[in-house]
């Protein structure tokens, strides 16, 4: 039974299933709404007129220059804004809480006093983060795929899946950065604040890169640019950028496993 083999993970999932279901419903509803508006908004003439009246810099920063195309619309609404924003809130919040949050409020102490190795506790809690983020990205992706087909948008399903893979790795990366910072410091606020700040910084850097001449150079520093820079909704899979995104998760996870094992808990 799962509960016997992974007692920490299964207990956490049971405890969080209600909030997870609510998140899934919210993500599905919001992203579905935007895709469903494509025939009226993106493909309509009013949207084009609106974009033409906006300052050019703003249009570029928001990535609205291609909002009249199916891929441009999907990127500007779902994959470039709503899905990453909501999922990052979830992942960073969960990443900070799963270790540092529960350490700070004292609930972790009893678990660690039990016959379970610290690395195992870290691994199962990290696993909980991965499982929940994968589930929410999967729900979002499935809803987008279904609605894209329903409103007859001209975007390849494989390209959507490729973009979703990047989205997953981006969100997981920041969630694990929060988790790793929590493992390192034991401070919920630090984990939440620093990881959240880094995510905002990455977004702003990416938006800025679209505006300035030396933008190409800036993009190298923003995981947001690694995610949408190669335009996966049009061009599909890009192993290099996915690997770069995955590296964030791998490094953060290793830091968490090593750091938490070495320090005092609950100080």
């Amino acid at each position: 039974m799962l509960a016997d083999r992974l007692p920490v993970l299964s207990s956490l999932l049971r405890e969080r299933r209600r909030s997870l279901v609510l998140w899934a419903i919210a993500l599905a509803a919001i992203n579905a709404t935007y895709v469903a508006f494509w025939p009226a908004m993106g493909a309509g003439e009013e949207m084009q007129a609106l974009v033409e009246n906006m300052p050019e810099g703003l249009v570029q920063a928001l990535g609205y220059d291609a909002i009249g195309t199916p891929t441009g619309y999907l990127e500007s609404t779902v994959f470039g804004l709503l899905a990453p924003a909501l999922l990052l809130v979830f992942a960073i919040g969960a990443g900070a809480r799963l270790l540092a949050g529960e350490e700070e409020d004292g609930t972790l102490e009893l678990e660690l006093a039990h016959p379970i190795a610290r690395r195992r506790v870290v691994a199962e809690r990290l696993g909980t983060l991965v499982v929940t983020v994968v589930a929410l990205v999967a729900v979002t992706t499935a809803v987008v795929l279904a609605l894209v087909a329903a409103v007859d948008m001209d975007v390849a399903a494989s390209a959507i899946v490729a973009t979703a893979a990047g989205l997953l790795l981006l969100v997981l990366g920041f969630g694990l950065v929060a988790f790793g910072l929590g493992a390192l410091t034991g401070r919920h606020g630090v984990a939440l604040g620093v990881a959240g700040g880094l995510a905002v910084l990455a977004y702003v850097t990416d938006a800025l890169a679209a505006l300035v001449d030396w933008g190409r150079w800036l993009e190298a520093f923003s995981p947001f640019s690694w995610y949408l820079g190669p335009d996966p909704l049009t061009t599909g899979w890009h192993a290099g950028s996915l690997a770069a995104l995955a590296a964030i998760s791998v490094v953060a996870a290793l830091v968490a496993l090593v750091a938490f094992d070495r320090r005092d808990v609950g100080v």
Partner: protein
Amino acid sequence: MTTDVVIRTHALVKDYGRTRALAGLDLEVRRGEIFGFIGPNGAGKSTTIRVLLDLLRPTAGRAEVLGQDPRAGGAALRARIGYLPGELALKGRQTAGSLLQTLARLRGGAGAKRIRPLAERFGLDLERPIRGLSKGNKQKVGVVQAFMHEPELLILDEPTSGLDPLLQREFLELVLEARARGATVFMSSHVLSEVEDVAARVGIIRQGQMVDVDDVATLRHHAGQLITLTFAEPVGPEAFAALPAVENLSLEGCTLRCLLHGEPDALLKAAARHHVVAWSAENRELEDLFLDYYRVPPEELDSAAEEASAHAR
């Protein structure tokens, strides 16, 4: 590894940044005994306990639990321990029963069968969600999880806090049963009265150091007697101030009060030179002894402790 010492710390030091929580703590708990670990809040009791459970790593010195270093012993060592945290934090939607089942799973199922009988004994409703439980009920959950797998060592940090008097007695009964089956019990408290009925030996910690370790009977002897003598007319302090075994002398009009450690002979002979109209000798509560320890600055305490152990021999 068989050893008669279940917990041993040697010159244990723990710093939090610049604050020294433990300043060279030496501790020895023997197999099969109930050891009371007494000290005021902030003396280092919980820090010591959390080092024993490998939640904290010592700055210097050594700690040994069941013959092993807590860190090296790891999960296998913790399987042999039952721990009740001093500040038990329990949260969540799940029921008390489901939390206890999860904790049993962390022990590979050990103790799952005893959850229900222990809960019944303490009147804990296993169907209620954790977050709705009162402090006392959470403490019951803590007691159940610490005892359910019948560990050979119980480490209990302020175990009776939050329990009403009736349950405190039930709890002490549980501690005695654990000892009867051969377990060792290490329990902390900031008041002696909570442990003196069950503990054979007591250690007193103050500012991160053990200031005294003794059996409860010897401590009672050290606590001494409060003497009150009333004379027919006022007497001068000179004749009494320098007497052996007499401390805290005070004279108000015709009434003399003092604390007596040891034989009353010299005091009685000095008093007999005057007309004594009333007298009383009252055994002090052990609690007062601890207040003595807490009041005295550490330097004086060292000499006082030496004196006390000299008395004992």
